[in-house]
């Protein structure tokens, strides 16, 4: 175990997997100079065949990822900000997520897409989206939302070794956060939630960066005598429904915290699953703490109004318990 930054954990995972398998290649806009930090040093070590700057042409990059993967490579595509998913969305939704089915299973698409998501840095609407709900709906794509350095490393390594398209969602601007990362070949399986805190009064499911706020909320609530059980799903596709159901069966209450806009969010999906499969265990309404259906404004004060925070999470738990 060693304390590592989130971004360092990603960098380590990339190094290790590229070293492990010569078929792993990585391309994207400005990956050579590594402005996000995550690809730093890779060029010097692995050379331009395996790490390569591309022109700005997301529609082609996503399509090329499909072609190169179908032809036997393990492709890592860096899309920088998650809003640029939209620019390359055709090959994601119409090809990456469907080609295996359409060919009757003739091919595998080992593709890992990296992109930063989320608001809170005054980068305004076109650099602040949290679009994993869109990817979840499209089908055929794994969606990973590591909340800490250890999971970042373990999920990314798993994704690169896997045989399916995976979107690895990095919480933008939070690369500096430190956490213990297990030494060696640390892998985190998909579809396995982490129970970050046990508690009997209410289940809080928090996604990605929201985990941090949910932990703070749980601390606040603990002082008021409310014991929160905090579940980090870690991957949204596949979703560890069983873990969430188990927790709700124990607590009877559910709050879901998601940085995506509310409508058709991951939070809504999780709420729907529980309202169906664990209805009998519910003692109160399922609350969602999400971003309103508003594009992220530029001004920090307006961003804060929209983003979940420890207080809004704690309030939601209190409301859920009171109802």
């Amino acid at each position, binding site marked *: 175990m060693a304390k590592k930054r989130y971004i360092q954990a990603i960098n380590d995972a990339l190094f290790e997997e590229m070293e492990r398998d010569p078929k792993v290649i990585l391309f994207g806009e400005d990956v050579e100079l590594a402005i996000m930090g995550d690809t730093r040093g890779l060029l010097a070590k692995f050379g331009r065949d395996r790490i*390569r700057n591309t022109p700005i042409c997301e529609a082609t990059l996503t*399509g090329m990822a499909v072609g190169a993967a179908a*032809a036997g490579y393990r492709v890592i595509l860096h899309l920088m900000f998650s809003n640029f998913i939209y620019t390359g969305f*055709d090959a994601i939704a119409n090809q990456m997520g469907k080609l295996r089915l*359409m060919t009757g299973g003739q091919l595998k698409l080992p593709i890992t897409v990296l992109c930063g998501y989320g608001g809170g840095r005054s980068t305004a609407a076109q650099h602040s989206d949290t679009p994993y709900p869109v990817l979840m709906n499209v089908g055929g794509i794994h969606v990973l939302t590591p909340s800490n350095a250890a999971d970042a490393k373990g999920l990314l390594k798993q994704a690169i070794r896997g045989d399916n398209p995976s979107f690895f969602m990095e919480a933008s601007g939070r690369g500096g956060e430190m956490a213990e990362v297990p030494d060696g070949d640390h892998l985190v399986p998909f579809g396995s939630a982490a129970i970050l805190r046990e508690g009997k009064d209410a289940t809080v499911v928090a996604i990605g960066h929201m985990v941090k706020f949910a932990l703070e909320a749980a601390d606040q609530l603990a002082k008021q005598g409310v014991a929160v059980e905090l579940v980090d799903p870690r991957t949204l596709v596949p979703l560890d429904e069983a873990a969430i159901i188990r927790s709700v069966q124990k607590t009877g209450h559910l709050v879901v915290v998601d940085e995506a806009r509310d409508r058709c969010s991951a939070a809504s999906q999780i709420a729907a699953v529980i309202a169906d499969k664990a209805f009998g265990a519910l003692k109160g309404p399922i609350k969602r703490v999400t971003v309103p259906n508003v594009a992220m404004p530029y001004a920090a004060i307006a961003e804060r109004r929209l983003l979940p925070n420890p207080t809004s999470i704690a309030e939601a738990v209190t409301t859920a318990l009171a109802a």
Partner: protein
Amino acid sequence: MTTRRNNSGPTDGQLLGMYERMLLIRRIEERLRDDSATGKLPGAVHLYIGQEACGVGVCAHLEETDWVTSTHRGHGHFLAKGGEPKAMMAEIWAKRTGVCKGMGGSMHVADLSKGILGANGIVGGGLAIAAGAAFAAKLDGNGRIAVCFFGDGASNQGVFMETMNVATLWRLPLIFMCENNQFSEFTPSKEVTAGEIADRARAFMPATVVDGNDVIAVWRAAADAVDRARSGEGPTFIEAKTYRIRGHIEAEPMMLGGGKYRDDVEIQEWTKKCPIARLRAHLLETRTAPAAALDDIEASIHGIVTDAAAYAEAGEPADPELGFDLMFAGARA
């Protein structure tokens, strides 16, 4: 690329091989046309009739390990690249014996084992996929190349320019094969395609325009392009001027509801320019083959078509549970 690098060929054997392949495509598609008319085929059927020289003239140069990507009008490319008639026919019949197990259908016929990365229902969808495969080939350094077939309509999708840019920068072993059949669905190309498509390509790479109904011309242009690709010189663009004889889609008359978008005379004129009839005349004229030999080919193809249709019809319907297993490798959706 105005002067040919490669002056030999096609040989007599190659010509006969291409004749056979073009005829196979034609006859298979005539059968599809008829089966579609009688309501036996589900889904949309886009026929390649009239354009056979394009796919065949190019694929004649390809190895099984080379890659191709195709379009919604993909039967011809599938067969030209060596795909199995039976497996394709059964696919279009939506049978589990189909090459994609009935999951893809006419617009998605693919055979990875033959380098056929698939027909594609998204106009322009194959371009970047082919570039990705070409990049893989380049990294492997094993001489494989990739060809993307696309239409004049697809040349208006931005991904065309994007892909040319990457292919040029990275010297990808990639051939851009544009089949200009003069229509995007029901819209004449000139109304939606400004200037010359080849001029768009010239900003990036050697570009050549050929008569797409002359398989020898296509073969020659492709010879040079393949040579460039294999020798690491990068991508080439070829535009083949041709014409689609059938409607955009077999359901066309119904969709048009009496509307018209092209002249019957124009269709007749182009029907006369049939690439297969033209090659046949050439073969006879040059005494490359006697009529009897060509008739034998016709007969053997007749057998293949009949067999393929029977195989398709007899197949078991697709497995309705299969989709759940196909969304992810190694996991159920």
